[in-house]
């Protein structure tokens, strides 16, 4: 038997091979008896007796094999009242073998079915833009009558659904595609739930909901660039930021200091007041990335505590912050005395540094984390230094404090100390704070990479690659994750194990073999009725990919985060993330009905024991069909009478003719 969404096909198995074998034995026995009777009684009487014996044996064989006769039985089942009529097609009769005993197949049964509504598929765009409406297409099948319904879309997060977009639709019978709007408010991957709730309920509500994942990025990068004073470092930073595709840049440079001698009036200047309240209070949330370059956040007279607090909250809420050094930056600008210090990946107060701003000549040393981190991994291929470039030494350094837990030092420098061993100081540090990310560059001399002192230097490519990588990582650009994480089968199914594959991106993939990956997974219930479940699994990279297996769970989503077990390159406490949707096994009503029919109809003929009763847990209206039924021969008394008559006739003729 086979079935689809709208058809049920019945077939009946032909006679078994055992029956055919027994039939052959009977024919051989008849042949033997026939020859014996002909020799004993001659051709006339011998053939007659042989024929009678054949009939007796055949009748006995039929009784033993029980091939039965197929007839159609009209049966009625009750079904929901809203069901509409549906035609079921029969099996192709040429597929059946017309063997003895005679067989038949059912007439096309007419059955009134359906009333079920289910979501067949969800089509998700490859990328959505944050805080912008995105269309998701949902294929809905209505096996019933026209019905009003609600379509609900909500993000799947801890606990209950956070918010839900509700759309009212009219579902016509058949298949239709709905467009629902999704407005993501967070970057990266997220899990969403779409459900259709028809008015008056549904026969099979479990197939009315699907979980899908959405990858969110920015359509433009809104950057605020604030500099404490113009310098070459500021010039080349601005030049880089303005060259970024899709970047909207707003800049403010402090071009005068309060104590400057000013032989001019204000009207003779093209300067504008520094709009501190506009930037740090009113408009800060409209930016994606804030670059503070050599800015004295702790000493500038216009900056108050409320401004610094707002900036710290901006980071915790998901904003990106890049702090670049200089003679007024970090501790030289009393940054440790502001609220922003709480979100930095270093503790500025815990420092035994030689000063707040050191001048000299400092060679950059890339750390192990720097060679793996998504922000800087693209600078390295097989070599120990950024490929193809001899980087100019840096002319200044802001000694930072101790690095906080979860932060990564990507690059450092060594500072010679008279009469003592050289001291290492972090140069580039990255980390996470709340939902946001922070990057520190503890120098104002990086511009020397952008404007190298040698004509044939390629360090400007390193500058651009470094800045691009840092900005991409800070702003959660999709391609900045270290690993690609995905389920091997999509979607994962309720009650089945989920295999998650973690593969390296780009240049990291060649260096992963043998390393261990740590996967942190959290299952979130789609309906929000069960508590989340968190677990960790480890796997080993065989080549560039590793596979870990997650246990069976209910409908919802796995939030998966992968990082190297050694912690390298994990980027400030946050690994590569993905969402794996877990969906219930969807069965349409026709599939359910077919599964219920199967044990009733698909029975071998030897032995023949048919269960005449069928139970369907279906409320409401009527299902009417002609169900094939096999009538066992021994339910027909005429066959037994015929057998008895044949046996008596044969016995009588043999006695009369003297062959007993």
């Amino acid at each position: 038997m086979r079935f689809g969404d709208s058809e049920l096909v019945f077939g009946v198995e032909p006679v078994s091979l055992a029956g055919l074998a027994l039939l052959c034995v009977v024919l051989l026995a008849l042949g033997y008896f026939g020859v014996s009777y002909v020799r004993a009684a001659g051709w006339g009487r011998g053939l007659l007796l042989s024929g009678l014996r054949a009939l007796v044996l055949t009748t006995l064989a039929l009784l033993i094999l029980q091939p039965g006769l197929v007839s159609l039985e009209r049966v009625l089942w009750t079904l929901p009242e809203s069901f509409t009529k549906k035609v079921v097609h029969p099996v192709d009769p040429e597929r059946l073998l017309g063997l003895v005993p005679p067989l038949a197949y059912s007439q096309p049964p007419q059955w009134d079915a359906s009333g079920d509504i289910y979501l067949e598929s969800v089509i998700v765009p490859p990328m959505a833009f944050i805080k912008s409406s995105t269309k998701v297409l949902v294929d809905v099948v209505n096996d019933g009558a026209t019905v009003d319904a609600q379509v609900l879309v909500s993000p799947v997060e801890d606990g209950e659904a956070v918010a839900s977009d509700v759309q009212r639709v009219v579902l016509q019978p058949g298949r239709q595609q709905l467009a629902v709007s999704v407005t993501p408010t967070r970057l990266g991957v997220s899990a969403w739930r779409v459900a259709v709730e028809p008015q008056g309920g549904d026969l099979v509500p479990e197939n009315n909901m699907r979980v899908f994942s959405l990858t969110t990025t920015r359509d433009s990068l809104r950057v605020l660039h604030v500099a404490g004073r113009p310098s070459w470092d500021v010039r080349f930073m601005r030049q880089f930021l303005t060259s970024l595709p899709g970047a909207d840049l707003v800049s403010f440079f402090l071009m005068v200091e309060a104590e400057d001698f000013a032989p001019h009036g204000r009207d003779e200047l093209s300067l504008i007041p520094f709009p501190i309240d506009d930037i740090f209070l009113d408009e800060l949330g409209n930016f994606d990335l804030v670059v503070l370059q050599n800015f004295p956040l702790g000493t500038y007279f216009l900056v108050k505590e409320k401004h610094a607090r707002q900036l710290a909250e901006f980071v915790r809420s998901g904003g990106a912050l890049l702090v670049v050094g200089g003679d007024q930056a970090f501790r030289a600008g009393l940054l440790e005395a502001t609220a922003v210090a709480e979100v930095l990946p270093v503790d500025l107060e815990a420092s035994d540094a030689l000063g707040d701003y050191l001048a000299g000549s400092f060679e950059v040393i890339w750390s192990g984390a720097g060679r793996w981190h998504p922000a800087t991994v693209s600078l390295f291929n097989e070599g120990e230094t950024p490929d193809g470039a001899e980087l100019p030494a840096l002319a200044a350094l802001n000694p930072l404090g101790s690095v906080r837990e979860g932060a990564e030092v990507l690059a450092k420098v060594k500072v010679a100390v008279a009469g003592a061993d050289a001291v290492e100081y972090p140069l580039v540090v990255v980390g996470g704070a709340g939902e946001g990310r922070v990057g520190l560059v503890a120098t104002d001399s990086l511009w020397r990479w952008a404007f190298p002192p040698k004509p044939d230097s390629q360090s400007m490519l390193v500058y651009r690659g470094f800045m691009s990588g840092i900005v991409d990582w800070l702003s959660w650009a999709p391609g900045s994750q270290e690993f690609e994480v995905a389920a091997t089968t999509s979607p994962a199914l309720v009650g089945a194990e989920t295999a998650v594959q973690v593969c390296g991106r780009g240049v990291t993939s060649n260096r992963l073999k043998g390393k261990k990956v740590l996967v942190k997974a959290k299952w979130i219930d789609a309906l929000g009725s069960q508590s989340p479940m968190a677990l960790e699994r480890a796997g080993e990279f065989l080549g560039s990919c590793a596979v870990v297996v997650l246990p069976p769970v209910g409908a919802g989503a796995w939030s998966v985060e992968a990082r190297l077990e050694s912690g390298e390159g994990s980027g400030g406490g946050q690994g590569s993330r993905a969402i794996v949707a877990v969906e219930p096994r969807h069965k349409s009503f026709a599939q359910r009905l077919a599964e219920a029919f199967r044990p009733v109809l698909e029975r071998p003929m030897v032995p023949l024991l048919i269960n005449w009763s069928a139970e369907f847990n279906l409320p409401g209206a009527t299902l009417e069909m002609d169900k094939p039924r096999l009538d066992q021969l021994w339910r027909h008394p005429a066959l037994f009478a015929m057998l008895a008559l044949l046996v008596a006739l044969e016995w009588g003729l043999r006695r009369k003719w003297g062959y007993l």
Partner: protein
Amino acid sequence: MGKCLFLRSCILWGAVVAAMLSPAAATAQQGGTVVSLAWYSPAQPVHASAMSTLASEILVRTSVEALAMEKSLSSLEQFYSYPLVFWPLASDLPTLKREEAVVLGQWLRSGGTLVLDWTGGAAHIEQAKLALDGLVSAILPGAQVERVPKSSVLYRTFYRVTYAPGRTRLVEDLFAVSYGGRYAIIITYNDMLAAFERNSEGQYRRDVVPGGEQQREDAIRLGVNILLYALCLDYKDDRIHMDYLKSKRNWRLPVDDGQ
């Protein structure tokens, strides 16, 4: 007026000496924040005080930590250590060798800014313009010398300047060569650096004609604008700045007279 200028000069030089003796300046001189002003004049000697004066004025008027070089650059290869170089030109304009033009062109494409300051006066100015066209073509093939419109950000990077002042006022406008969306070469025909020269007593050496001391002040302002343009590029063209200046200060950008 003379007393006011003398008093201001004392304050200025005192501030310069104090700034240069302070530990911060000593540190800044060696760090990455300091902006160096370098010049190149293989044929035309430049009075060292011109650059020192410009650096001092920048130090006093703006937040930039400026420092004049002690001596001029002696070769084009040295340009790579400085993103901004002043090059005064006289009647005998240089003829660059091919490899020199390549070096200079690469420096400009990397981000360098060159300021050419004509010091030859009115006599040979027309030949100078033609020769400069040839010089620019050798350095940046395909590039052209163009007049800088009055509405350009170069005239309002820090000060509002309406013409191109120097020791003289032979040509009203600045000229420039664009590359990569910025002015890579800036040309002035009015002997700008000479307006900054001082004698050993701190007095200005050269008279400024025809505008006198006001023209000298305007020349200093132009020098400040050029430096800040090199540091900030088109920062002052950002919409938020223009919107404020137009609404709050009732600014109107100058209408170009097409000269």
